[in-house]
């Protein structure tokens, strides 16, 4: 049962003009339209005015004939009444609350008696009594199904991509290993081509042990060297540039080693002798 609720165009326009966001303006205009319709039906909405509550208290006192002031209970008399420091008796209090909460002894404020909504009553309780939040609230969602579904789809995508690749591309298998026959092109796996390329420029101890060792130690030490507390890119230009430079340097070495080196590890262009590169 979906009942189309009209929005109060006048309220909506006023809120939009006042810079309210469209979503909130629409909600408020909708509420205004509903309120208007209910008032037109003759319903009395909202908490009762204070005079009504005071009047109810006076009526109550007059009827019960409480001590002291008797029939001439005025507001001042009520405040000074019965030597309990201007406090109301429990009966008086409940009568006053009932009157202020709406007609017919209903305990809801502006909500029809039949309604099961009670949340508005929370407005009567000071916030400190409800909220005991120590840490900042965070926007969180349940892992199942939200995260697990995303992960499952990613897993299927990569799994099927790999399956298709494996169906069409065969892993290389050369001729039987023969220590006596050195092949013309002699290359490590692609992720070690950077190291092999370094060997071309430095003594093997520097290229094969010192440089990668230092690189790994620096990489591990990154969180202890980078004392900048901010994670925003605009605040960590040096770190990002240094890391990008490191990645680019390594990438260039791997590309040169993989694609631009031919027989005897000499420089060749791929269009003269082919790639000479096996995964």
């Amino acid at each position, binding site marked *: 049962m979906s009942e189309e609720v009209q929005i109060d165009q006048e309220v909506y326009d006023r809120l939009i003009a006042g810079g309210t966001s469209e979503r909130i303006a629409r909600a408020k205009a909708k509420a205004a339209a509903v309120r208007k319709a209910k008032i037109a039906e003759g319903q009395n909405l909202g908490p009762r005015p204070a005079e009504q509550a005071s009047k109810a208290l006076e009526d109550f006192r007059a009827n019960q004939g409480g001590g002291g002031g008797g029939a001439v209970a005025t507001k001042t008399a009520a405040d000074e009444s019965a030597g309990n420091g201007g406090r109301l008796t429990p009966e008086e209090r409940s009568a006053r609350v009932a009157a202020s909460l709406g007609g017919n002894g209903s305990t809801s404020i502006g909500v029809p008696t039949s309604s099961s909504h009670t949340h508005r009553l929370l407005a009567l309780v000071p916030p400190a009594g409800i909220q005991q939040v120590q840490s900042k609230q*965070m*926007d*969180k*969602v*349940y*892992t*199942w199904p939200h*995260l*697990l579904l*995303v*992960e499952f789809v*990613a*897993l299927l995508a*990569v*799994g099927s991509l*790999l*399956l298709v*690749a*494996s*169906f069409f591309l*065969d*892993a*290389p*298998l*050369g*001729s*039987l*290993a*023969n*220590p006596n*026959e*050195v092949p013309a092109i*002699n*290359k*490590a*796996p692609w*992720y*070690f081509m950077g*190291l*092999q390329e370094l*060997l071309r420029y430095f003594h*093997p*101890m520097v*290229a*094969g*042990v010192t440089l990668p060792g230092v690189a*790994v130690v620096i*990489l*591990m030490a*990154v*969180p*202890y060297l980078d004392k900048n*507390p*901010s*994670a925003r*890119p605009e605040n960590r230009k040096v770190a*990002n540039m240094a*890391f990008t430079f490191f*990645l680019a340097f390594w990438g260039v070495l791997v590309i040169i080693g993989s694609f631009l080196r031919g027989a005897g590890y000499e420089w060749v262009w791929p269009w003269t002798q082919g790639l000479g590169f096996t*995964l």
Partner: protein
Amino acid sequence: MARKPPSFSDVKTNVQDNVIWKSIFRPGSIYRKGYRDTSRDRALAAMNNVLYHLHPVKVKRHGLKLTYTYCLGGLSFFLFILLTITGIFLMFFYTPAAGAGTELAYANMRDISASVTFGNLVRNLHRWGAHAMVFTVFLHMARVFYHGAYKPPREFNWVVGVILLLLTLLLSFTGYLLPWDQLALWAVTVGTNMMGYTPVFGDQVQFVLLGGVTIGPNTLLRWYVLHVLFIPFITVIFLAVHFWRIRKDGGISGPL
């Protein structure tokens, strides 16, 4: 009176409503009878399943954005599992033996490619999966760096991550020798020569890795054990620490 065939929901209820089924699936499992899409059951699904348990019950909403993590860590782990499964399959058909004249390793590789059912496909999956894993682990590291996700309190998990990157490279590299073809032999020659230049005990390092002074049958056996047992064992331990630290350090890092 003709019996009606049991409906799907009857069968489902009968399967799910017995002691054995209940003992397998803990409360909150989506396979258990009476799973409802409530907050309680959603929480239990993550809490009470060994695999989902790697995650917390709730995650920050920004972590769902594909463009924040690109799922790279999860995909690296998935590829690790895939490589374990395909690797175990290959182990049924592979002998790490390469004595002169009886090159079983190479012969087995040819058999896997030519005669084993699905052998070629599984070998291809293992090879390409290994390359893909090196790639995703590497990209995962770059993603974490650019998001500054290694900052306190996650410093140590970055160190564990770098160790895992090295272990991934070692896993891939030790697997490289196993086909015992020319490519494997000479690529590994390049690699072990490099390690031989370690200062002070370079010769010893090389000797241990080669199981002798040159690459031979002993090298193959050593690298096989390293590849299928030793390095995966170390990797699993570091993976456990890595995942545990993610949760203990407050989940994945916040938005920029």
